[in-house]
């Protein structure tokens, strides 16, 4: 017989004493034969019966059970402060986005070339012209026209005033040319970079004060670079020489060989292959200091011609300024004569040459009686 001779029910009845004598004999004989499965069944049934006969367990009051259950939540709440970083994983994406946003804002704010700006032609006493790029054709330019980076502008037969995005203004004298190399700023305009190229003519610049090192305003000519921090100055450029005259503030002028600070009331001449020369500028302005002595009106105190110059480092020794021919300048703009004097541009003149303390020391007196005392 293939079927098991004793069922689970037989074993239950055997334990309960409900089996008939024949069934009882059959079950006991089977168990005595050592059926392992039946032994396990009997053991489990005895264990079950022992448990149920042990009596009912006393049940605690419901409030006691509820209190024990509530302790789990209380423990979790008490643990929260110790898991101080637990909320951070949920906040992490937002925090990361905020950091990225702040970093982007900081980048855009501090990088001076993040945003390109423009310039506007504010005034023109005669038609001005502009061209797009160095190879573009010159086109007539009306007042209110907008210019952008890479554009060139020139005044024809009169002056033209151009306002830049940063509040700076350029007054171009007839035939002066300027290219807008860089008209850029960072976000909010705190950091900005204005770079202009002036190959020819005379241009008066008015630059609002710049904040620290965050802003830069530079004019480059064929032979010099003028860096300013808020000032009024005039640049006259030719292919071989650039003259800078400062009306207010201080201007850094870099020539081919050296550089120096030019103060208000001073001028500088940079010539190709020559050292920079700094001295009293040619024409008085309303802000000129009377104590410096009379300024020549018939000719510049500073001329590109040679003369006995002040030694390197700004020697206090008075040296006579080298007279030179004067050239009347339109609109009262200071202008040095481009005509060379008796010497070449490299020869020492009545000026100081930049060195330690240049721009801070006494200016060399000219031949018209100005001096330090």
């Amino acid at each position: 017989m293939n079927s098991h001779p004793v069922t689970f029910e037989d074993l239950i009845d055997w334990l309960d004493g409900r089996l008939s004598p024949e069934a009882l004999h059959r079950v006991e004989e089977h168990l005595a034969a050592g059926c392992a499965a039946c032994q396990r069944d009997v053991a489990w049934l005895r264990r079950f019966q022992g448990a149920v006969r042990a009596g009912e367990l006393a049940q605690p009051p419901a409030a006691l059970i509820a209190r024990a259950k509530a302790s789990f939540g209380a423990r979790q709440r008490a643990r929260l402060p110790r898991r101080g970083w637990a909320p951070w994983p949920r906040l992490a994406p937002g925090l990361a986005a905020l950091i990225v946003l702040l970093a982007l804002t900081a980048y855009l704010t501090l990088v001076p070339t993040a945003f390109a700006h423009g310039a506007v032609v504010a005034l023109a006493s005669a038609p001005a012209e502009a061209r797009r790029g160095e190879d573009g054709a010159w086109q007539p330019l009306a007042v209110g026209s907008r210019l952008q980076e890479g554009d060139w502008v020139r005044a024809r037969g009169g002056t033209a005033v151009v306002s830049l995005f940063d509040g700076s203004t350029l007054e171009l004298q007839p035939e002066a040319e300027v290219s807008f190399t860089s008209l850029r700023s960072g976000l909010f305009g705190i950091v900005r970079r204005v770079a202009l190229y002036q190959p020819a003519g005379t241009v008066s610049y008015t630059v609002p004060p710049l904040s620290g090192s965050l802003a830069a305003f530079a004019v480059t000519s064929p032979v010099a670079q003028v860096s300013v921090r808020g000032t009024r100055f005039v640049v006259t450029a030719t292919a071989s020489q650039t003259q800078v005259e400062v009306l207010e503030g201080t201007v850094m002028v870099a020539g081919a060989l050296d550089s120096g600070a030019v103060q208000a009331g001073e001028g500088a001449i940079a010539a190709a292959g020559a050292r920079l020369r700094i001295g009293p500028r040619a024409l008085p302005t309303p802000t000129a200091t009377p104590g410096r002595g009379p300024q020549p009106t018939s000719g510049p105190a500073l001329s590109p011609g040679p003369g006995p110059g002040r030694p390197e480092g700004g020697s206090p020794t008075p040296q006579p300024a080298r007279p030179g021919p004067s050239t009347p300048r339109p609109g009262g703009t200071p202008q040095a004569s481009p005509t060379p004097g008796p010497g070449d541009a490299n020869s020492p003149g009545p000026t100081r040459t930049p060195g330690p303390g240049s721009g801070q020391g006494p200016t060399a007196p000219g031949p018209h009686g100005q001096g330090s005392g």
Partner: protein
Amino acid sequence: MPSPHSDGELLAACANQEGWAWDALVDRYAGLVYSVALRAGLSQEDAADVFQTVFATLLEHVEGIRTPQGLAAWLITTTKREAWRLARRSQREPAASEVAEALATAAAWQNSARAEERHWADRALIAEALQQVGERCRQLLTLLYLEPGEPSYDEISARLKMPVGSIGPTRARCLAKMRELLRRMGMDEG
């Protein structure tokens, strides 16, 4: 709410901060702990204190229990220890009759403790399994094993409207289902 999960599964869920598992553990073993405390001779008030202490201790160690199959035994041992501590704290000069009674209780406890503890631990699981075995089986097994007075098959047949000849086979099927439920809940076969 009766839970079909084993003690090991419930402890793991508790360690994972799942409150339902803790509720299930308290439901499963509340009667066991309270009964052991009362059996140790404590008053209901003291048994309630011990009950709170034991479950607080379990909660404190719920993440570190490595042998969940011994949870019932651990609860019994902890309950007895707490009951003994409480009895020592509130010790006063006992009357001679109380001493005699305590000695008799302690001796009885010692003699029957192991077997009874196992029965009680099983009983805690059986109570839960009965809630899950199905209404018909629960009624039949309750009448057969838990009803005072041990009603006869005829009485059971009348109360459950079940032929007498069906009682035996039905009981066998219901006990087999109980066995499987208890096995899943962690009650071993030994």
